């Protein structure tokens, strides 16, 4: 039964204190505590905390697992079991940017497979294509890029799509994708089709962890591209509307005793 969570937490921890030079300092701990405070039960903070440790190191390291376990009073095994379940938690250090290409059926047929194949080749070295979750360049250094093939990214009307650090680049071609990664390798940050200006993988991971802290400026940026508003625009152009609402629609009476 799931209701036992609070008792269970705090008893099972085998986590040892992290060394003083651990990358998870006072600042990270303070953020972790603010996340935990959002939830009626602390363990609910585990997914955000894993995003948080990933924002510090660019992946979920064993130390990161220990940090989460310490914060939540869980065993490291409990944390690892969760970290290994979810695609977004990376087990190896990521590049400055993570490029995810949708290769689910619809994107694939419209060019997603070709884009992924082209990027693998283009970013590979000495004739060996780069593999899923492999990095071109040195992880953590400027211009380094990790690539992956992704499942449906919920932007099918913009197919084929790819994401850089989970920001959308819509209606891509193999050529546009190559241009994009070349720009990233030069240290440039071409703007996403929709969304905030591009940052890097670790910054986005931090925003996922402590979203309530997001810079209000980052909220702006384009969102509704032509595809998004096509129906609404067409209706406006043709004068089509939903039926008019009555001025004061009455609510039903309070139902009889249930």
């Amino acid at each position, binding site marked *: *039964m799931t209701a036992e969570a609070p008792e269970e937490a705090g008893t099972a921890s085998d986590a040892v204190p992290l060394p003083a030079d651990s990358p998870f300092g006072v600042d990270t701990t303070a953020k972790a505590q603010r996340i935990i405070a959002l939830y009626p039960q602390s363990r609910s903070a585990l997914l955000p905390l894993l995003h948080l440790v990933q924002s510090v190191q660019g992946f979920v390291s064993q130390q990161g697992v220990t940090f989460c376990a310490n914060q939540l009073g869980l065993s490291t095994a409990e944390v690892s079991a969760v970290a290994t379940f979810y695609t*977004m938690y990376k087990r190896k250090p990521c590049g400055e940017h993570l490029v995810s290409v949708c290769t689910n059926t619809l994107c694939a047929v419209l060019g997603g497979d070709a884009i992924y194949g082209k990027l693998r080749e283009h970013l590979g070295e000495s004739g060996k294509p780069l593999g899923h979750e492999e990095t071109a360049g040195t992880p953590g250094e400027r211009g380094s890029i990790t690539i992956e093939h992704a*499942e449906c990214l919920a*932007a099918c009307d913009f197919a084929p799509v790819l994401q850089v650090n989970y920001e959308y680049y819509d209606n891509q071609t193999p050529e546009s994708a190559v241009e994009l990664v070349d720009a990233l390798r030069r240290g440039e940050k071409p703007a996403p089709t929709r969304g905030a200006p591009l940052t890097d993988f670790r910054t986005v991971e931090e925003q996922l962890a402590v979203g*309530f802290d997001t810079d209000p400026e980052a909220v702006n940026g384009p969102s509704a591209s032509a595809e998004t508003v096509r129906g609404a625009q*067409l209706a406006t152009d043709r004068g089509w509307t939903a039926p008019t609402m009555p001025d004061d629609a009455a609510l039903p009476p309070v*139902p009889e005793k249930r």
Partner: protein
Amino acid sequence: MTDKLTPVLTKRWLSPNSWTLHTYEQLEGYTALPKALRAEPEQLVQLVKDSGLRGRGGAGFPAGVKWGFMPPNEDKPHYLVINADEGEPGTCKDIPLMMADPHSLIEGCVIASYAMRAHHCFIYVRGEVPHCIRRLNAAVREAYQAGYLGTNILGSGFDLDIVVHAGAGAYICGEETALLDSLEGRRGQPRLKPPFPAAAGLYGQPTTVNNVETIASVPYIVNGGSDWFRGMGTEKSPGPKIFSISGHVEKPGQYEAPLGTTLRELLELAGGMKDGIPLKFWTPGGSSTPLFTAEHLDVPLDFEGAAEAGSMLGTTALQIFNETVSVPWAVMKWTQFYEHESCGKCTPCREGTYWLAQILERMVDGRGTEEDIDTLLDVCDNVLGRSFCALGDGAVSPITSGIKYFKDEFLALCEQNRARNSEPALAGAGS
């Protein structure tokens, strides 16, 4: 007779800075909330029942009935959880809604929470959409500042907190009980039902899980009333619905039309098939809903119509494929997706998707036999209805429907294979 398109949820998307509180308030935003807070919670549950609003996340369960399952008292904490883990292949309606109009979801959350006596609401958003999450967080912050969230909302005495929670990449978390496990900080694996979430959900407490589009519809129903809502759509599937049209069409995009609209009508609005290449197959509601073909252009796309024609309405994610696309290849790609996303909890789905993918890969690679088709159907039969949750049922949909309508294509692959295998022998005989 209603117009062909009936923008309700999508109407505000055209406005500049549509995601801000300022725009939302200028366009009738937060006018349903005070009206709802003056009512008894039971009146709101009854209103949603009367409206006939059915869940927009795929299953189509009547939302008011679901709300009615929540206990009428407050002996335990109640929770409302919004399923914003949009990931069903083809589905792309909730993400644009939350990006363009997050306050409509938040207003719906407050009304629904009040109706179900919940004081905590979680919006579980898939992690791969940071911009959506930024917009939601900003909207939640604005709503707190304006007194639409927090304590004593609009002087009603009702308190509500909303937390936007980022997932971490797992399709299975769209299943409501897997979502709850994930929200509790666990691997996202489904739970046995019963108990249903209304009895034992988040932290074992009464919980309702609703889809984004469902909850965003609620403020309009409060303002317009159930008769107004029923003025769109069909008797059993009332209301407007966001149809997401993608693939080989001239103008893919989001089209909000009354339920019961047909693909023929929607295709016309979307400019027809891309480059005039004829339609071959399509999904009415994501890859988990059995395929349709050009024969089904006039099927009314409501819950009953899609089911009567042998599929499901699902999320009204219309993925359109033209004649150039190989059905066995498409089915293989989808099966690889289900194999990757199977959570591994139950044997039929874990093993079934693993072997189904291998058989399909072999066939597409030109190494299949006619027997493989029978094996596929046999494995599907052992997954369908025997898996722990609906992921397994969804996984077999493309395969069984693909073979049902396009068996010749599967056979042709086997035929090519046989021809190729016999070639060396013939060549040898000739030398």
